[in-house]
């Protein structure tokens, strides 16, 4: 199991790569929208490229959340539990996440493989979908690994799920879901 610092660096790298891809997807939609309305010439395949690139970033983002524990969850009951019981609840919760992520990874892996031989292509440029699907599966594999790392840290060091979560009180971390 890698040291905590190295794990953090790897997670940060994953987050930054996916953030750049996220930025690219946003730019593609922006340029295509401006191109269409201002010059009557949208970017070819902007629709497919932006949604597929964004899907890759979301899948890679699962790796970040698996480690940081910052999925949306209900804290109502567990906040009243003793630290030992909280740890058991956290272990259980992240084991369920691990099983779910692993199943997702397996089934999407199969889909990516089948797409490799006779798969879909984008509408305009006929770019095959399989490279994007492969990157999505890679993201899910990373998510399984990072979830496993978080589980191990809960078990070995008693770290809670929110140990590496971005602080809600940070101005930059203030985003939530409502």
């Amino acid at each position, binding site marked *: 199991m890698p040291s905590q610092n190295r794990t953090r660096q790897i997670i940060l790298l994953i987050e930054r790569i996916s953030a750049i891809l996220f930025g690219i997807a946003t730019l593609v939609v922006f340029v295509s*929208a401006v191109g269409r309305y201002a010059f009557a010439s949208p970017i070819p395949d902007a629709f497919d490229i932006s949604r597929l690139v964004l899907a890759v970033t979301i899948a890679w983002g*699962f790796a970040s959340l698996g480690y940081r524990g910052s999925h*949306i969850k209900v804290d109502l009951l567990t906040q009243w539990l003793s630290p030992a019981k909280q740890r058991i609840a956290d272990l259980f919760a992240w084991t369920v996440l691990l099983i779910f992520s692993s199943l997702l990874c397996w089934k999407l892996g199969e889909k990516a493989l089948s797409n490799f031989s006779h798969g879909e292509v984008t509408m305009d440029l006929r770019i095959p979908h399989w490279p994007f699907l492969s990157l999505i599966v890679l993201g899910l594999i990373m998510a399984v690994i990072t979830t496993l790392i978080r589980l191990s840290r809960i078990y070995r060091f008693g770290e809670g799920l929110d140990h590496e979560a971005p602080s809600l009180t940070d101005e930059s971390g203030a985003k*939530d*879901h*409502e």
Partner: protein
Amino acid sequence: MSENDLIAIGGFVVLFLLMLVRVPIGVAMGVVGVGGFGAIVGLKPALNLLATSPIRTITDFNLTLIPFFILMGVLATQSGMSRELFRAANATLGSFRGGLSLATIGSCAGFAAICGSSVATAATMTKVAYPEMKKAGYSDEISTGVIAAGGTLGILIPPSVVLAVYGYITELDIGTLFIAGVIPGLLALVMYMITARLWYGRQLPAGKPFSLKEALAALNGVWAITTLFILIILSIYMGIATATEAAAVGAVLTAIIGLLRKQLNMASLLDSLVEALRTSVAVYTILIGAILFGYFLAITRVPQSVTQQLLELGLGPYGTLCLIMLMFIILGCFLDAMAMIILMVPIVYPVIVQLGFDPIWFGVIIVMTVELGLITPPVGMNVFVINAIARDVPLPTIFKGVLPFVATDIVRLVLLIAFPALVLYLPGTME
């Protein structure tokens, strides 16, 4: 009771148990969805759902507006626009008695118009407005109550992530839903201001007059973002751009404004992208789970049974509507707004359609109902967020401060139920 009914009930029990032990809400819904579907049709078809449904969700172009709008909000926060909005609102309203409280509500509305998240609005405005109000002699009860209530505007004033999710689930046009939220959002803003002024009356400190020069300087900081917001809403309203395109254009232009005004640099831009991505993934996880759970609902015919049973109660359309809203308010004690919408809307939506209510109108009404959960105990997410930042203010004080605004919310809900045109007028005039 048939076997399917038992599986449905069991599924809901397992779902709530999983959520109570902090299994991520989306994962809990996904596990129960696949497991419940598998219990009825077999394991193999259930597992095959995992190969098709989640990938469809994350590659759905219609959903991409959610990360784009989240990004726009994060960029606005990183650029310090919340502070500028507060300064501008204060320069405009600060001379009246209780002007700072009115300015706080006004800047909450302004920030909500860029951000789309209630919790983010409450968190940001606590840092910006609370110290100023404390310095000006406002009691903790008033200042935190005003911020908690003002924060809820984030869920209603477009762009609203929760309204977008409602639109996705019900297959309604998200742009139309955003436009439908405009008048109720403005109504909320005005009613909150009136409540603050009338309820707290003489308890509010006197205002501080601003010179024209000061006011113009403060307004100078917000013209760009105000223009951007108006352009986004107008482009959706006039059908010039889809909501997704408007979201992407809004995010890119917010970044450009921030970079040009040197409020953002490449490092903070990257940080914003990372932050927006984390939040977006959390939302997507719930959506993936919700769609999987939808298969379980469909095969167990839960929505049909609920529809039949609610209609058999013979409460009439408005009685049934009140019962549904009550269910949302009770669930709001345990679940957050997004989870409630995703879990409950597929179940009650057929009832609403059958009763002849307008789905767009219902979307706004139900979002306002879950908004109540953000400021009422025991969860009251906004209250907890404020408490996490203003640590010296006890939770009961914040809840006490927010109480008059809860009453206002209920009055506003009654108004919108009595006069649906307040919601439906603008969508009816869309091109």
